[in-house]
Structure formats: structure tokens, C-alpha cells
């Protein structure tokens, strides 16, 4: 009796200790976001007089409006809203196209093996390990030849090409766990190459589609290097605009505007994760389709 009650007491204490440490870690982790949020709602004077983590004297949304519509990014002073839409125009097609191509590649590599398909897959995999810097110059030359330099279309193309290596890997690993008998049954039912993909494989791919969309959306939205190299003045994505906004110094540095712009730039990826995040873990862990 005695020993059991002590051990329970130990358990309780240990548990509180673990929770305490976890809470502390969470606080440390959330602190930068907290600072960003409160700073974005402060006035300029408030920032200069108050401390970094103090709450605003007066909550104002001026800096949010400025970041969205009037802040200067380089020579223009229209805020980041135009670039936000640039990013949307680039991300949506790039994510959808690369996901679709990945699904199709994965289907072929896992279910329609051909001579050299393993080699093909290995080479695709190799693409995942290529650093961005390596492809900068050749890609620039190619975009120039295609007449797509400094266009959103060009950026979409770059992201699709770079992303297909990852999306193919995701879908191939998912489809490899789908029993081949499913494909055989469909073949005997009279379904052809495309029907099997559309009617059988794609409808059971929701978890891996979600994973791929989150992955691609996050990496393309957050990309800076390709954005700064291949975009023109009117096709720059938000990451480039954010950089320009922070680096444009006209008098006093407007930290509140910088913070607001940074949060705006990060919102879509957060949103995607909140909406589809539950599929992320599920899609990465679950693979096999049990009939």
C-alpha cells in the first residue's frame, strides 16, 4: 500500500514536471510569433518607448493596412497586396500541375513497370537532392529560350519541374502499397490505362494528395531564390516583396509594418496546414489500402 501510494505520488509529480517543461518549451517556441503579433498592432512611438514583449498601449491596425496597401517595396509604394496575388497565381497552378504529374508518374512507375522503370525512378529520386543553386543558370538560359523569362508562367514551370521529383516519390510510395490485384481486376473488367488511373487509383489517393499539396504549397510559397531570380518586376512573389519591403529604408524603420507583412506572407501556409494538416500525418503513415 505504502509503496504504491508513493509511486502514484511520484507519477503525479513526474507528470507535472513533464507538462511544465513542455509548456515552457511551447512558450519559448511561440515567443517570436507573440512578438510579431503585438509589434504589428503597436504604433511607431509605442515600439520605441515600450519593451519588445509588452502589450500595445493602444491597439491599432494601421501597420496592417500599410503593409497590405501602401508600404514601399523598392520603388513602388503599393504595399504587398499585388505580390500576394502574384504568389497565389504562381502557387495554385504550380501545386496542382506538379501534384497531378506526380500522381501520374507514381501510377506508371508502381503499376505499369517498363524496362528501365526502376532506373527512371532512381533518377527522379536524384532530383530531390539537387540544390536550387545548381539549376539556377541552366534554368535561366532555358526560360530565356522559351521566352518565359520574367513571367509567372516561367516561375510555375520552374516549380513544377523541381517539384515533380518530390511528388513522384510521394505517389510512387503510396501506390506501391496498393495491391496489384486491384489493377489486375480492373484490367479484366475491361478498364484501360487511363480508366484505371481515374476510376480506381485517384479516388483512393486523398491522403497522399493532401500530403503533396501541403508539401508543395509550403515549399513553393516560401521559396525565395527561384522567385528573386526568375520573376520580373510585375511577377515577383510575396517572399521577394517582403524582402524588398524590409530592406527599403525611408527614414525610420517601421517594424510594425514589417511584422504585419511577414504575418500576411505566412498566413496562407498556416491556413493550408490548419485545413489539411490532419491528413498530413495520416497520409505519411497510412499507405496500404485494405479492401
Amino acid at each position, binding site marked *: 500500500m505504502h509503496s504504491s501510494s508513493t509511486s502514484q505520488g511520484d507519477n503525479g509529480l513526474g507528470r507535472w514536471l513533464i507538462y511544465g517543461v513542455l509548456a515552457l518549451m511551447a512558450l519559448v517556441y511561440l515567443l517570436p510569433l507573440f512578438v510579431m503579433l503585438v509589434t504589428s498592432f503597436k504604433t511607431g512611438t509605442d515600439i520605441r518607448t515600450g519593451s519588445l514583449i509588452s502589450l500595445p498601449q493602444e491597439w491599432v491596425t494601421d501597420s496592417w493596412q500599410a503593409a497590405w496597401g501602401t508600404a514601399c517595396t523598392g520603388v513602388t509604394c503599393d504595399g504587398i497586396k499585388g505580390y500576394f496575388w502574384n504568389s497565389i497565381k504562381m502557387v495554385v497552378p504550380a501545386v496542382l500541375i506538379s501534384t497531378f504529374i506526380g500522381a501520374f508518374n507514381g501510377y506508371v512507375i508502381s503499376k505499369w513497370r517498363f524496362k528501365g522503370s526502376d532506373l527512371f525512378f532512381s533518377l527522379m529520386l536524384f532530383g530531390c537532392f539537387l540544390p536550387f543553386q545548381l539549376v539556377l543558370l541552366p534554368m535561366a538560359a532555358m526560360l530565356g529560350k522559351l521566352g518565359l523569362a520574367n513571367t509567372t508562367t516561367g516561375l510555375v514551370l520552374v516549380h513544377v519541374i523541381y517539384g515533380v521529383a518530390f511528388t513522384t516519390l510521394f505517389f510512387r510510395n503510396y501506390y506501391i502499397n496498393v*495491391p496489384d*490485384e*486491384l489493377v*489486375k*481486376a*480492373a*484490367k*479484366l*473488367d*475491361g*478498364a*484501360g490505362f487511363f*480508366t484505371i488511373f481515374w*476510376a*480506381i487509383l485517384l*479516388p*483512393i489517393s486523398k491522403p497522399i494528395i493532401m500530403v503533396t499539396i501541403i508539401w508543395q504549397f509550403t515549399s513553393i510559397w516560401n521559396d525565395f531564390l527561384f522567385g528573386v531570380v526568375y520573376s520580373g518586376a510585375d511577377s515577383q512573389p510575396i517572399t521577394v516583396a517582403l524582402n524588398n519591403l524590409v530592406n527599403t529604408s525611408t527614414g525610420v524603420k517601421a517594424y510594425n509594418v514589417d511584422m504585419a507583412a511577414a504575418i500576411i506572407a505566412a498566413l496562407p501556409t498556416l491556413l493550408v496546414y490548419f485545413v489539411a494538416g490532419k491528413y498530413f500525418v495520416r497520409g505519411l503513415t497510412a499507405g496500404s*489500402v*485494405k*479492401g
Partner: protein
Amino acid sequence: MAKLDLIDIRKTYPKSDLETLKGINISIEPGEFLILVGPSGCGKSTLMNTIAGLEDISSGEIRINDVDVSGLAPKDRDIAMVFQSYALYPNMTVRENMAFGLKIRKTPTTEIDAEIKRVSELLQIDHLLDRKPSQLSGGQQQRVAMGRALARRPKLYLFDEPLSNLDAKLRVEMRTEVKKLHQRLGTTIVYVTHDQIEAMTLADRIAVMKAGEVQQLGSPYEIYNHPTNMFVAGFMGSPSMNFVPITVLENSDGHACTELTGSDGKAQLLALPDKLKTYVGKKLMLGLRPEHISQQLSHHSETDLISAARFNIEILEPTGPETIAQITINDHAVHCRLAPDLSITAGQDLDLMIDVSKASFFDPDSERNILL
């Protein structure tokens, strides 16, 4: 209903030195239930896949109703297959699963509906039509898989170990269902299994395969009672056939006989069929099924080919309807089937009756049945 002819089917996988199928010749009559049986890796599933067109053959011909289909795609062969894993489309309801093949073949909707009604009533799955496969039990999935095959009314049905994923009780139930279904519909069926009881109970004819070759093709009765070689004899039947090495002798009356030595070292004479007189002095392998060795049965008087012998019972395994006993003959463990109510204990000696009229005799080197 269709006739299927497999003519000298050969198959070698790329990057392999060994032939997986070494010239298979089987003719299957319309409405016949043929079972391919054999151990893992004997090529039975490969053969089935080649019939379906899911795998190419290296040479030979596959004829359905006298038309060579070996160059055709699976969908053009008009074959339906039931898989071991059922392979139901997980995203579709039972109804959609069954309608899928019909829709692809552009069957009118009213006809599809009628067909699904017919098949689902036949298989008693009409209350499950709107469920997804994941909401069904193993046995129900099995029925749906058969329903999907039946709905298309193909020329030929292939069953690839369809019952092996079911638990023992359900397997026996579904076995009866399959048999009933075949008797009712009279369809041509090729059925792969490694379960020799399934093979015996279901088949019109059985093809026993080993290492890419058909060892014997015949009715269950022929396969069981007249196996062509020791592999077939040992594969079919449970407990399997006992093999006892013997030397053929001639007794004073001029009849063939042999000596059986028990665990106590005493030799007892066993009468052999006179057909074996040409083998006097030679060594043979005697194949005795467990049921050919039993306790003394009063209504079986001792005839020429039924000999009495006394052996020490070493192990008793009661199964309920019968008791399997192990004895030793000529240094080989031998199983016999005894009546369950016999009052004996292990270690006792017992008078047994050995019936060699149904025994098989094999050449110990070639392992072939010498009496066929």
C-alpha cells in the same frame, strides 16, 4: 460456357534461367470445374495469370472456344477472375463494384440494374449493395468478389485461391457455396488452390502441378486412388500416404508377398498382388493410405489382399471421428486410421488389418507408379 485449350504453354521470366511453366497441355470442356493444385512456387498462379492475359507466355497457345487468345489483352478475352485478396475497388460501393465492368462495356443501365439484381439475389448480398467494401466482413467481401465476376457473364471464370483468406469455418461454408453455384450455373471454371481438400471436394478434374509441370490430370477419384507418382500420392490426402520400402518376395504357394518389420524387429508376411510377381527380388516403394490400415474388422474376412499383422501402437491422435495411430514398419513411421471407440493406449500391441488391394507401388528411383 466455353471450352479452354492450353497447348504447350511455356513461360520463362526475363532474367531467369529456369522455365516457370514447362509445356502445359490441358483441355477444359465447357462447364467443367478444373482445379490447379500444387505447392507454392509450382507455377499454378503463373498459369492462371497467363490464361487471364495478365502475363505473357513465351510459347504455346491459349484457345478459348478454338480461338487463339494468347495475343489478346485481358479485356478482350472475356474472362472474369476472383482474387485471393478479393481486390474490390475500395472507393466504390458493392453495386458500383459489380457494375464497373458492365459500364466499361457500355451495357445499358436497365440491363446493368437487372444483372446486379439477379447476381446479388443469387449470392444473397442484395442487402449490402450500398455499402463500401471496408464495411463488409471477409465472407461478404468474398461473395461480392464472386458477384462482380458473375455479373459480366464471361466465357470463363478464374478463381485464384479465393478461400484462403477466410477462417476455417467460413472456408468450408463458402466451399459448399462455390460448388452449389457451379452446379446451378454450369460455368467453366479454372480454380487455383494449394488446399488438397478444396481440390478433392470441388473439382471435376484436378491438375496436380509441381515445378512448372502437370504431374497428373484426372478426376479426384483417379488422383486419389491411382496417383501416377509419389509426389501426387503424397500431396493429396491428409494424413498423407505412407511410403514403406519393401522387397518383393515369393511365398511357397507361388504368390507375391513381402516382409514387414515392426519396431520389435519381428518380420510378418504381407500378401501382394500377383501383378508384382515380375518384380520378385526387387525393391519397391509401397504406398499405403492411412485408411488402408485399420483395426480388425469382423465383416472384412481375410482375403488374398487383406493381411493381418500385429504392430506396436506408438502414438495415438484422436480427432473425433477417427483416431490416427502411428506405428513403425521397416523403420518408417506409418499412420493408420482406427475407429475412435477402440480401447487401446499408446505402447500397446494391436492386431491390424492391411488392405493392399488399393495400395500403390512405386519405383524407388523414378518414383513412378509401376502399376499404371
